[in-house]
């Protein structure tokens, strides 16, 4: 490598760093992205010129094919598809690094024998391994997000054992490859083994943990590039790969903190945890069904009650949950008794107060409104309906803000992009820490397709997947209007006690787009 090549590499790396730091502000972000892209372009042109491969026509054909496919995909994609698209692109980058690893290991495309053959063999094999894990892992993640394959965590029999074996065999492949260079069978075997490992690792991660998996894979694809760069001793590649690797890791950390989960528990324990929760959840709903049946009939248990079955279900529950259930039952009975005591006269009074306050009337009076959007809003394609509602409220003089939970959507910052698509100015989007204290002072909160991120059970329900996760303090608000599709528990499978609150909660169930349009029209 000549000195001017070295200087150019350093300059380009600095340009990339500058480009990324410009992405920390909305105003400069577009230019930052262009600067990074420009640095990449110069890097490609310089590589073609300096390595003296101007006359190799195959590279131009390949670049044009890739550029056409990539540009077309970028143009066609919708914002809601962003997570799977990023995962897919990411995987392809990893795959390219793995292929470069194979070529370097086979000493294809080298002008002379390498100076440090052991280092080159080792990094080439490592590039194959990390690249293949990224490729297959990302494809699985993209498939899950696009609902091509089942999004739930999947655990095969002896899953951990198989994963462990594949990992050990992959390491063995890297070691053998480091010692014996230039053997295509060792390279292909490692490709296969690490690919299988990538599959086993990604298939057991569930949809709610996907944002974290994507940012981890993003980090890995950078690392794969950096290692491939070490194998072919290209400083530019090593530098950019290192930056990408670090950024992905940092984002992963931020996400983990926002969800109150450790990385290891997501990669290893995600599916196992769900399993232990499932039976008691079932028992809980059974008890809840029993409780609700008392509303219609006068007695709690009648001759139709299957005591044996109930006992069996109760056996499944842990002591604490059992106590909770008993408590709920007693409360229910007390409530019923009270209702009976109050007699029939109380009933119309309740109906009257309900008539006075409708979601539309609450919003008509509100001077300060916070909107909490969730992934359900994106699924219902209700972004524009949300914008209309916000416009109408603002036209009437209300102050409208949006509260965005860090893990709302399917990747970090996904919700911001979806709202930006609907022309909602980014100054109105507030992060959780910035707005959480304002919920108790606001007039009304409108929840659209969000559940887990505002579930107050996260503070109390020990042992559930969301316990300890920081949530939006929607429960503090005096009036809450919930525009969700249904009242089913969200992805985490924990019921939201907010929906059962007696005062100030209005449920507008159904398709968010339609409910919002109706609501907007009703506001006077």
């Amino acid at each position: 490598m000549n000195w001017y090549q070295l200087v150019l590499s350093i300059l380009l790396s600095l340009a990339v760093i500058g480009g990324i730091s410009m992405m920390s502000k909305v105003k400069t972000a577009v230019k930052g992205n262009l600067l990074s892209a420009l640095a990449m372009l110069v890097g490609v042109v310089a590589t073609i010129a300096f390595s003296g491969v101007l006359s190799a026509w195959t590279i131009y054909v390949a670049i044009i094919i890739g550029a056409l496919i990539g540009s077309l995909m970028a143009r066609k994609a919708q914002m809601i598809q962003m997570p799977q698209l990023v995962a897919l692109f990411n995987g392809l980058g990893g795959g390219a690094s793995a292929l470069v690893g194979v070529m370097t290991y086979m000493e294809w495309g080298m002008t002379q024998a390498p100076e440090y053959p052991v280092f080159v063999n080792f990094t080439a094999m490592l590039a194959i391994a990390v690249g293949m894990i990224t490729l297959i892992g990302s494809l699985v993640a993209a498939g899950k997000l696009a609902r091509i394959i089942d999004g739930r965590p999947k655990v095969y029999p002896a899953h951990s054992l198989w994963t462990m074996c594949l990992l050990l065999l992959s390491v063995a492949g890297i070691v053998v490859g480091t010692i014996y260079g230039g053997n295509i069978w060792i390279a292909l075997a490692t490709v296969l083994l690490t690919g299988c490992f990538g599959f086993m690792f990604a298939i057991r991660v569930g949809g709610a943990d996907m944002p974290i998996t994507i940012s981890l894979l993003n980090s890995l694809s950078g690392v794969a590039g950096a290692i491939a760069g070490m194998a072919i001793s290209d400083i530019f590649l090593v530098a950019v790969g290192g930056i990408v690797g670090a950024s992905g890791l940092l984002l992963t950390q931020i996400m983990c903190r926002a969800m109150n989960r450790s990385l290891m528990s997501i990669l290893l324990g995600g599916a196992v945890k769900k399993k232990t929760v499932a039976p008691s959840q079932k028992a809980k709903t059974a008890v809840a069904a029993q409780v609700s049946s008392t509303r219609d009939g006068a007695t709690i248990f009648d001759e139709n009650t299957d005591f044996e079955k109930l006992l069996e279900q109760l056996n499944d529950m842990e002591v604490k949950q059992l106590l909770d259930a008993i408590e709920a039952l007693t409360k229910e009975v007390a409530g019923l008794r009270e209702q009976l005591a109050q007699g029939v006269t109380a009933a119309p009074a309740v109906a009257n107060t309900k008539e006075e306050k409708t979601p539309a009337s609450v919003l008509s009076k509100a001077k300060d409104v916070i909107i909490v959007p969730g992934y359900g809003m994106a699924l219902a394609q209700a972004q524009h309906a949300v914008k209309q509602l916000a416009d109408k409220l603002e036209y009437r003089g209300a102050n409208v803000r949006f509260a965005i939970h860090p893990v709302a959507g399917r990747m970090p910052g996904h919700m911001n992009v979806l709202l930006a698509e609907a022309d909602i100015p980014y100054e109105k989007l507030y992060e959780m820490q910035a707005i959480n204290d304002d919920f108790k002072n606001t007039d009304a909160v409108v929840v659209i397709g969000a559940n887990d991120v505002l579930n107050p059970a996260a503070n109390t329900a020990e042992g559930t997947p969301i316990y300890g996760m920081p949530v939006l303090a929607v429960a503090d608000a005096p009036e809450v209007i919930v525009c969700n599709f249904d009242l089913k528990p969200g992805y985490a499978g924990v019921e939201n006690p907010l929906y059962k609150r007696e005062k100030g909660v209005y449920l507008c169930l159904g398709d968010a787009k339609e409910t919002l349009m109706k609501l907007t029209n009703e506001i006077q």
Partner: protein
Amino acid sequence: MHPLILVAVFVVCTVVGYFIISNVPSLLHTPLMSGMNALSGVTIVGAIASTGIAYLSDDGLWAQVFGVLAIILAAINVFGGFGITHRMLRMFNKKK
């Protein structure tokens, strides 16, 4: 180039990257991730050099198959990644 220099460059860039990224607000995390993603396609530089040299030094058909495939994959990553990032960032700035 000496392996130690390469490893040192990697470590330095990792640390620098870590600090730059921590300044980015969560508002911009999706475009940031997709921009990073585009940058991870930098491996295209390596793929081009290897494939080109393999072509000129007649390393055989398989070298070309692997190399061309590597360039195509990396190019999709680069063009797709930068393209979609640009589209997203423009949405944030639409009003101005």
